[in-house]
C-alpha cells in the first residue's frame, strides 16, 4: 500500500517536472515566435515608410489601376463584331512581325548563351574541373553573368552596338550563359561516376572524358533546361524593347506611353497567347525528354 503510494508520489513529481519543462519550452518558443513577428512587422512598417505604400493609397490606387486596365478593353459590339476586331487589331501584321522578332531573339539568344554555358559548365562543376582555381573562376564568372539583370546588359549593349534586336540578343545570351551554366554544372555534378572511370581507364584525355562519359548522360537534362530557359527568355525578350533592344516591347512601350489604350490590350493578348503556346509546346517536349518536371526537383 505504502509502496504504491510512494510510486504515485514520484510519478506525480515527475509529471510536475515534465509539465514545468514543457511550459518553459513553450514559453521560449512563444518568445521566439513573438520576436519573429515583431521583426516581420518592423520590416513591413519600415518598407511601407520607404516605399511610400499604405492601405489608403492602395484603396485609391486599385480603382485607378482597374479603370486603366478596363479602359484598354476595346468597344466590341455584336452587330459590327468583325469590323470592331479589325479596328482593334489594325496593326496585326506589324505586331506579328515584331512577335516573330521577339521569339527569334530569344531563340538565338538561348542558343548562343547555351553554347557559352556548355563551354563553361565542365570547369564549373566540382567533380570535373581540372583544378580548383579554374572551378572558382568559372563559377564566379557565371555568377556575374546571371546576377547583372538582363535589362542592364541590354542598356549597355544598346549603347555599344546600337539600337535594335542585336543588342537584345546579346543581353539574352549573356544572361542565359550565366544561368544555364550553373544548371548544367549541377547536372554534371550528379552524373554517374562509373563511365568517367571507364573512359579514363581506357586512356581517355580530359576532353574525351567530357565528350564520351559526361555529355551522353547529361544531354537530356541539358536540352530540357535549354527549353525551359527558352520559355523564360521569350518573356524577357518581350520587355527588352523598353530600352530599345528590339522585339514587341518597343511597340508596347510606345502604346503605353502615348495612351493608345486598345493597342495595349491587343498587344498584351498577343503576347499572352504566344507565351502560352510556347510554354505548352516546350513543356510537352520537356516531359518527353526526361519524363518529369524539372521545376519539381529530380
Amino acid at each position: 500500500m505504502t509502496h504504491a503510494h510512494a510510486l504515485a508520489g514520484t510519478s506525480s513529481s515527475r509529471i510536475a517536472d515534465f509539465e514545468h519543462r514543457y511550459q518553459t519550452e513553450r514559453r521560449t518558443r512563444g518568445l521566439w515566435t513573438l520576436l519573429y513577428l515583431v521583426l516581420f512587422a518592423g520590416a513591413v512598417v519600415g518598407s511601407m515608410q520607404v516605399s511610400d505604400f499604405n492601405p489608403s493609397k492602395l484603396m485609391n490606387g486599385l480603382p485607378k489601376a482597374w479603370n486603366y486596365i478596363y479602359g484598354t478593353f476595346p468597344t466590341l459590339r455584336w452587330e459590327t463584331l468583325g469590323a470592331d476586331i479589325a479596328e482593334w487589331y489594325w496593326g496585326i501584321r506589324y505586331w506579328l512581325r515584331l512577335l516573330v522578332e521577339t521569339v527569334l531573339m530569344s531563340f538565338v539568344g538561348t542558343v548562343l548563351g547555351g553554347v557559352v554555358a556548355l563551354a563553361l559548365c565542365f570547369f564549373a562543376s566540382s567533380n570535373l574541373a581540372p583544378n580548383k582555381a579554374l572551378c572558382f573562376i568559372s563559377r564566379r564568372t557565371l555568377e556575374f553573368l546571371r546576377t547583372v539583370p538582363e535589362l542592364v546588359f541590354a542598356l549597355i549593349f544598346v549603347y555599344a552596338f546600337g539600337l535594335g534586336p542585336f543588342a537584345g540578343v546579346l543581353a539574352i545570351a549573356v544572361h542565359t550563359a550565366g544561368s544555364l551554366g550553373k544548371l548544367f554544372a549541377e547536372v554534371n555534378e550528379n552524373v554517374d561516376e562509373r563511365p568517367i572511370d571507364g573512359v579514363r581507364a581506357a586512356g581517355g584525355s580530359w576532353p574525351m572524358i567530357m565528350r564520351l562519359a559526361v555529355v551522353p548522360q547529361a544531354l537530356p537534362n541539358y536540352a530540357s533546361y535549354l527549353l525551359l530557359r527558352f520559355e523564360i527568355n521569350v518573356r524577357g525578350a518581350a520587355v527588352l524593347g523598353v530600352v530599345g533592344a528590339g522585339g514587341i516591347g518597343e511597340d508596347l512601350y510606345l502604346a503605353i506611353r502615348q495612351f493608345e489604350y486598345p493597342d495595349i490590350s491587343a498587344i498584351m493578348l498577343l503576347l499572352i497567347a504566344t507565351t502560352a503556346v510556347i510554354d505548352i509546346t516546350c513543356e510537352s517536349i520537356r516531359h518527353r525528354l526526361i519524363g518529369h518536371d524539372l521545376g519539381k526537383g529530380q
Partner: protein
Amino acid sequence: MTTAISADRLKALQQAHPQVFTRPLAARLRDWGLWAACFALLGFGLWWINASPTRIWDGLGKLGFLVRFMWPPSDGGVFWEHAYAMMETLAMAFLGTVVAAVVALPLGFLGAKNVVPNWLFHFSLRRGFDTLRGIDSLVWALIFVSAVGMGPFAGVLAIAVSDVMVFSKLFAEAIENVERKQIEGVRSAGASPVQTLRLGVFPQVFPVMLSHLLYFFEGNVRSATILGIVGAGGIGLQLSDRIRINNWDEAAFIILMILVTVAVIDNLSRRIRTKLIDAAPQV
C-alpha cells in the same frame, strides 16, 4: 583470356542484328533534320538581327571603351542617395511579395482540389493563374506607372500582381499535398475544426509557403532593381540615369551595389530556407 571476334563472325552478327550496330535510317534522318532546322533558324535569326562581323567588331571596340570608362567605379559623392534607393528597391520587393501572398492565400485555398472539388472551377482558375504569369513584372510596372503615377508604389503593385498568380498556384499545390494522417490524428484526439486547422494543416503548409515566399523574394529583389528604368522607384532609376548621361563609373558602382545586395539577400534567404525545410515535418 581475350574475346577477339573474327571478321566473319562480326559480319554475321552485323547481319543478324543490324539495329545494334547502326540506328535506323528514319531516326538518323529525323535527327539530322532537326539539327539542320535548328541551324537554319539560327542563321535566319542572325541575319534578321543583322549580326555582321564588322558590327560585332565595332561594338566590341566600343564595349572595351565603356569598360575602361567604368574603371574605377565611383559613387559620385552620393553614396547615401544610392543606398536609400537600394533600400527602396528592397522595400518594394518585400512589400510586393507580402501583398501578393496575402491576396494569394484565399485564391490558393479556392484552387486546391481537396478544398473545392469541382474540376471545371479548378481547371479554369489554374489556367487563369498560368495566363497572367506570361506577363513580365516590367510590363506591369509600365502599366501601373501610367495608372497611379511614378514612384515605388507602382513598383510594389507591379511585383504583387505579377506574383499573385504563381503564389496561388504554389499555395494550392501545398494545400493539396497536405497529409491526411496528421489531420485525422488531431481530429481523433478531439480537436475542434479550428484546432484541426491550427494543429493538423497549418504546421504542414506554413513552412512550405514561407520557403516559397523567401524564394520569390530573392527573385523579386532582382526584378525590383530594374523596375526603376520605367520610373517605378528603386535603384534602377539611378542606374538608367547614369547610363543615359554617360556617367559610366557611377553606373559601374551601382551595378556592383546590385551584385553585392543580391548576393547577400540570396545567401540569407537560402540559409533561412534550409532551416525551414529542416524544420518542416518530414512525410
